[in-house]
């Protein structure tokens, strides 16, 4: 049976259909989950897609983390389920303290919508397990608050524990240590600013996101067989 990925929709989320299309293209099945729901039963992985959850009022993710579904997302993550936050979803996971650090305004104070070249720095996560360290991927970014920041102790921990999954080759936004994506200690919760769902076929300019989403489907398949 194909694994089923839940795609969480907050008011203002706008990348959910791209994520669903990407997952289905790779043979998975996907189901939209509205933020007011409180259960993730029957789902094998969860993606928090990009957009402007709750209008990004106050700060991106600041209101979203109080949405009813987030208690279920936290439980799902703590029980080892695969959770991936893309762009705004990364911001939500940081605000919800499922990932360390924060995203702040880009260094150049401009909204960035461009292709970003990334290097895979760790494969110890549900999003990078199929890749190899050193792989270079081209995946689009589309954000204003994408500059990852954390204190130096956290940065050291992320590096020591191989939790920096992806780095920018040409840091576009001022992220500390060129960080584009990180994971929690167990590798089952991942956040990244680039959009792998927008790089699933050469028709879109790149298919380099496939290895990332296929990794997630591997993790989701393991959940099915458990």
């Amino acid at each position, binding site marked *: 049976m194909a694994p089923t990925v839940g795609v969480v929709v907050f008011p203002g989320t706008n990348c959910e259909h791209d994520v669903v299309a990407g997952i289905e293209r790779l043979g998975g099945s996907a189901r939209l989950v509205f933020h007011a729901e409180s259960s993730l039963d029957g789902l094998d992985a969860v993606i928090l897609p990009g957009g402007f959850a709750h209008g990004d009022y106050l700060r991106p993710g600041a209101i979203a983390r109080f949405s009813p579904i987030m208690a279920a997302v936290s439980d799902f993550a703590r029980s080892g389920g695969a959770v991936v936050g893309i762009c705004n979803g990364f911001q939500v996971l940081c605000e919800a303290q499922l990932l*360390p650090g*924060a995203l702040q305004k880009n260094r150049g104070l401009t909204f960035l919508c461009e292709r970003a070249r990334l290097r895979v720095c760790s494969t110890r996560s549900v999003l990078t397990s199929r890749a190899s360290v050193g792989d270079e991927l081209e995946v689009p970014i589309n954000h204003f608050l994408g500059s990852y920041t954390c204190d130096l102790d956290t940065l050291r921990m992320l590096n020591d524990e191989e939790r920096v999954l992806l780095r920018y080759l040409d840091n576009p936004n001022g992220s500390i240590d060129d960080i584009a994506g990180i994971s929690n200690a167990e590798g089952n919760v991942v956040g990244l600013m680039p959009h792998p769902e927008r790089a699933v076929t050469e028709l879109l300019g790149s298919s380099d996101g496939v290895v990332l989403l296929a990794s997630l489907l591997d993790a989701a398949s393991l959940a099915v067989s458990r």
Partner: protein
Amino acid sequence: MRYVARVEVRLRPGIADPEGATIERALPALGFDGIAAVSAGRAFRVELDADSKGAAESTAAALADRLLANPVIEESIIEVVEA
């Protein structure tokens, strides 16, 4: 008793502040000299009922910490006056 809390949220020292830096660079062009250490933040005004000024301050501090500021990168300064 009704109080007014003013919560100023600003970036912690050491966190990059590109907005503040940009404003600082713009000011000399307008003829303002001797400007330094510009930082950008946000201010919130909240009215609240409390038994004492101290109680209003601790409520304001709690809501600043739980919602208005992201403690990872921001800190808050609170001023409370009687409404």
